[in-house]
């Protein structure tokens, strides 16, 4: 079920909310939590019920393993390290089987001239997210950092519908105490109002802004072979904005929906395109993924404690893993590699004591991110190179009306203006407005300072109405694919 669907907004969310709090009102706490788990699984199964057994067995397996890891070592016949290794391998194999089998087979066939048939497995929804969350749980159980929680709270931690599909990637330490807390078992209008506030902003970001950009992005990448310079930049910028508004819109909706149930999800974005360097960007973009990569990959690899060379190697490895986590493809790997390299360059630059003018630093960072997103979006290298080639060496086309006004080349035909990306001049207005929006306060900052006023009531009501009326387009969230 999509957050931006009528069935979610008008049926699932209100029904779940009212039944949950009704059960709590009747002091049926266990029943209310069980209902929330059931609702979350229903929400998950809405797409494809076939993968319900997968998430259930993954949950049971990890819970059992996590519990075993929290026992006293002396009582265990096998070492904790062996159990943890087994748990991590099992999770990674499960993820690898569904996500990377075809990628591996394709490359195997290419390398050895073999003809092993591809499996064409459909990627179970959210597998990348719930696998990461549960690996973190196992590692922390091994480290003795988990408390004993019952299965119901654990199931809620994994399946809680606002964060189930595309994060934020939550940590058991921040979630399970909230589910266990009795303070969260009553309706709180402060949370409800703030939740609705941020949910509406997220809905608008996704439905109105991201989906408007997606039309130009799809058309631009489909016609990558023939874009002129204006179209190519419009395409790449559109994707840069689409991805941000799509994913941060989703996260806002997730945070808002969770807040209705008094659950505070961690923030995932903090105006990432304001970043002045690449390290700053990764502190602001998909924060919960960065946190996971840092805590469970970069630091266990040695982090920055084993000399400069190891630090750079660890950084590169972490970003390669981050890249391939997003998708089984060489373009994702290259995207990860580029970001890893950029971080290394940044560290070297920083250690040498160099500083850049803020505006120049922002310009370089933003453009680096914009250019590398092209690899992230393109279906193959050729498509990415086509767009990049057009961005830098494409034909310069001048709008017909502008040409007429300037009396330039009036008899010459200069090719299509924005034809290949199905756009009109409005695209420039959208890009300009979006740039302006990026430099205002972000939605989370607004939510934090939220106070009920007539003005924000009117504003939020208007954007909700507009988003609801614009919701008829067919669009999934980009991060559902990862």
């Amino acid at each position, binding site marked *: 079920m999509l957050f931006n669907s009528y069935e979610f907004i008008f049926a699932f969310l209100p029904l779940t909310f009212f039944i949950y709090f009704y059960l709590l009102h009747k002091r049926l706490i266990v029943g209310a939590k069980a209902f929330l788990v059931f609702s979350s699984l229903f929400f998950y199964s809405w797409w494809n019920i076939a993968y319900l057994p997968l998430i259930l067995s993954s949950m049971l397996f990890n819970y059992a393993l996590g519990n075993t890891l929290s026992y006293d070592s002396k009582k265990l016949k096998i070492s904790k390290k062996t159990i943890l290794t087994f748990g991590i391998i099992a999770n990674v194999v499960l993820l690898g089987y569904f996500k990377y089998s075809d990628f591996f087979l394709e490359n195997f066939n290419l390398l050895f001239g073999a003809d092993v048939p591809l499996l064409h497995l459909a990627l179970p929804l959210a597998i990348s997210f719930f696998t990461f969350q549960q690996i973190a749980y196992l590692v922390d159980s091994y480290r003795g950092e988990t408390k004993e929680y019952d299965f119901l709270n654990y199931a809620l931690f994994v399946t809680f519908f606002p964060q189930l599909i595309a994060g934020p990637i939550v940590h058991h330490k921040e979630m399970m105490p909230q589910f266990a807390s009795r303070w969260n078992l009553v309706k709180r209008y402060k949370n409800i109002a703030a939740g609705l506030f941020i949910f509406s902003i997220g809905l608008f970001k996704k439905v109105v802004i991201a989906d408007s950009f997606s039309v130009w992005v799809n058309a631009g990448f489909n016609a990558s072979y023939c874009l002129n310079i204006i179209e190519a930049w419009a395409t790449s910028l559109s994707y840069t904005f689409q991805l941000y508004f799509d994913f941060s819109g989703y996260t806002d909706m997730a945070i808002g929906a969770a807040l209705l149930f008094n659950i505070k999800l961690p923030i995932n974005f903090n105006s990432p395109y304001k970043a002045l360097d690449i390290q700053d960007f990764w502190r602001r973009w998909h924060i919960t993924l960065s946190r996971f990569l840092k805590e469970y990959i970069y630091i266990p690899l040695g982090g920055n404690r084993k000399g400069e060379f190891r630090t750079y190697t660890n950084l590169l490895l972490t970003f390669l893993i981050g890249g391939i986590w997003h998708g089984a493809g060489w373009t994702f790997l290259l995207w990860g590699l580029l970001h890893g390299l950029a971080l290394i360059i940044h560290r070297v630059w920083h250690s040498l004591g160099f500083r850049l003018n803020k505006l120049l630093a922002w310009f370089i960072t933003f453009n680096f991110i914009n250019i590398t997103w092209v690899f992230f979006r393109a279906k193959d290298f050729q498509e990415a190179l086509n767009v990049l080639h057009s961005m830098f060496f494409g034909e310069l086309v001048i709008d017909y009306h502008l040409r007429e006004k300037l009396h330039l080349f009036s008899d010459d035909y200069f090719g299509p203006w924005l*034809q290949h990306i199905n756009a009109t001049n409005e695209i420039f207005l959208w890009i300009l407005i979006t740039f302006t929006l990026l430099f205002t306060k972000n939605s989370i900052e607004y939510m934090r300072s939220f106070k009920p006023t007539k003005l924000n009531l009117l504003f939020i009501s208007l954007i909700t109405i*507009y988003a609801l009326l614009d919701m008829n387009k067919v669009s999934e969230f980009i991060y559902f694919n990862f």
Partner: protein
Amino acid sequence: MTYKRWTLYYFTIPLVTITAIFTFNFIIDPYSMTKYNLLEIPNKFARDDRVEKVAKLKSSPAFDNIVLGSSRVYSSNPLMVSKYLGGSTYNAGVGTARVEDDLGFILFLQKLNKLPKNIIIGLDFYSFNEELETNKYFLKNEDLNFLNKKIAKKNYIANFLSIDALRASYKTLSNFIKHPDAKPRFDKNGASQNASKIFNISLKTTDPDKFSNEELKKEINFIKTISYKKISKQRLLYLQKITKIAREHNINLYLYLTPIYGKLLEEIQQDQNLYIQLLKLKQKIRKIHPFYDFMTQNSITNNSAYFNNPTHFTSESGNLIYAKIFHDKNITLPKEFGVYTK
């Protein structure tokens, strides 16, 4: 203001507004989605050809002949088909149609038990390009979209609850107030209003070159920049499926490749890749079903007077196409105009 009051108002304002918009759209019903026409508006302003034509096919008795194809086709006069084949004809041509649209209409008619006796389909060279995506309005149309029902389901509500619907309702209502006697965009036979009035099938003697260089160059440039690497196998399969349905239900199926302006065709013939794709397409269609090939050079396609723009023929040309397909003995047409290919 308290949080509780804010929350209550937040629910009330959008709910009341959305309900009001829904009610307004339901009363005006710009896409003719319901059986009721509460204000008795004769000319519903639908922004989507597919929705309008599907609604018409639903509400009308079965037609004897159905014309399918893209915007090239809907300017042809369905009454000319009735003249040659007898019975009633509906022109179900829709903007930027691909073969999946044609199959979608046929499957939809089959479901309604309204399959016709004759089906005439105008096929476009461009629409077989593998890179060309399925039309988004087709995907949104739950009656036509046989590819992914889940995507289409959403749109029924959107016919009453969307910005497009609101605009269409407003435009319909203001049109109705200003011109209560205005006729709909498509007539009862699905053709554009002008097309239904044109019955002449004479040849033009003049040869005005009505397209500006700019217009022609734009089309030429577009043709040269489109990537036509492969003919879509999937669309050929859809065409096969159409012929299968026609065979199983004893429907006479007439296929033709729509004409484009001669100078444009010349550009395609000079582009090695495009020309190969065109020849391949003709071969592949021929293997599936015989067809009339109007994508040829001849005195009609070389005359710009027969075209509204370099890729869209006029209603007069539509009449000549039907005259050729249905062997009208009252007119002698150039041999190369509509070559029967089997």
